[in-house]
């Protein structure tokens, strides 16, 4: 398999996802199938080909730096799961 259970557990940690043992098993199998398929690109000689990033196809315009009205604090907090009217409230950090 191109990806191990340990790899899956590691990326799950990076991605802040908690997986059950069964999920780790399933994801290892399914991601393995996809990575096996993707391995077909390994046979291509791509060293002389530049990567295609959008910045190169058109300059990205920026608007003028003029302040305009944006979300109010009240609106910005409206969808928060927990807030005190000024701040987002989260569980303890340290």
């Amino acid at each position, binding site marked *: 398999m191109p990806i191990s259970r340990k790899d899956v557990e590691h990326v799950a940690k990076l991605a802040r996802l908690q997986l059950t043992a069964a999920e780790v098993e399933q994801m290892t199998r399914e*991601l393995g199938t*996809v990575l096996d*398929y993707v391995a077909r*690109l390994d046979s*291509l000689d791509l060293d002389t080909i530049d990567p295609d990033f959008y910045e190169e196809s058109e300059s*990205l315009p920026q608007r003028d730096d003029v302040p305009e009205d944006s979300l109010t604090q009240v609106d*910005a907090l409206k*969808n928060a799961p927990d807030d005190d009217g000024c701040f987002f409230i*989260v569980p303890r*950090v340290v």
Partner: protein
Amino acid sequence: MTTSSTSVLFGTIDEVGTALADGSITSLDLTRAVFDHIEAIEPDIHAFIRLNRSDALKTAEEADRRREANASLGLLDGIPISIKDQIITKGLETTAGSKILQGYIPPYDATVVQRLKAAGAIIIGKNNQDEFAMGSSTEYSAYGATSNPYDFSRVPGGSSGGSAAAVAAGAGFASLGTDTGGSIRQPAAFCGVVGVKPTYGRVSRFGSIAFASSLDQIGPITRNVRDAAHVLQVIGGPDPRDSTCRTVPMPDLLSDLEGGPKGLRIGLVKEAFEPDGLAPDIAERVLETANQLEAAGAELVKVSLPSLPHAIAAYYLTATAEASSNLARYDGVRYGQRANMGNARKVDLVDMYNQTRSEGFGPEVKRRILLGTYVLSAGYYDAFYVKAQRIRTLIGRDFQRAFEHCDALCLPTSPVAPFAQGERTSDPLQMYLADIYTIACNLARVCAVSVPAGLDAKGLPVGVQFICNHLQEPMLLRVARACEVQTGGYCPPAPVQGLVTEGP
């Protein structure tokens, strides 16, 4: 409205616009009729996550008042339209089909929604979709699956399956979808309607919930090509709020629309007819359509996209990498759901992140986040993401070479017909492989359309796809319209008509 006029619900924007303009119907009656129709068909179709009834009826009355005062905002004024739940709507719950955004009320409108509202369109509701647009069948919605209007036991395609099913079933006159790898075109093909993926940067992505930012585009799903032109004309063009939006103005999409097939060079893509997985009657319908265009005056040329077989691998590396980054924002802090952690004193911020994301995301989203995180993780960035961008260069070059010989490419939209619910969810790779014909356009940022090309042997819709070069939407829609004239285009689905016994 009278009983005989329920057929207006399956009509076009031009037809209903004329009826509104000459006073034979009002927007209020029309909008009411649409909601009555939705009520009749939703138990079988489930194309909507949320309806916007009271607000829609209010805005319909406003449209009627404007018309009475000779102050109509134009053709779309008073016309009921739905929006994929991936696109945010001010004051109207928007979830992108995910549990993690349940209860999210956007504080602003997407640019496309703002523009539709400014043109007087009535927003009737939010369409069902695969969670965060990740899927090709609308079975990965946290709010239940959508059914195909032509056969309720089959999928409508995806991810914009709710949009395509709604339009096919006469629930509104257009819908906006999003297309990252075919999510507008494939459901349009499965539901026998028209779906346009514009050139990357042609339509603002401001307010489109991000999946893969270098691939996502918003576009219209409609019952005919002309309606798609009307909607794209309104939603497209520069937007200072999206720096990837092209600064060139949207050209007039209607002036060349009826230009016809004479003189058009249509390129048949050699590699597109080779895959083992291509259903024979789909290949046949597409080739027959090309031959009809030739008989009507177009020239058929053979072209090659040699890198097409690498597109799926490059796509799934690019899309999952970008998705893993975009979906990092769902952390249970600023919006959306937070897992109930109880009052345990030991709970810290990271526990909350972990639990919120694990409970809030469905299996396909988790799969893609994991794959994308792996692809971007230390030591793998060059091997995966950068390699995929090199393939992207090759695919882009293929298209440019092909467009030296033709005005538009012609190929199937999907290699398979609408499949049965549940048939493919157990094998993610098989589901990905069915995107072969649509994803190359997103990688190359070119524009494409799916047009109804009749039915297969089982009576299920077949879509033919045309692809044009960057910013060539006028040509794209001209070709699509010429095709529609040959194939006959949209026809109302019999199972839905069976549900509608008597009108209001």
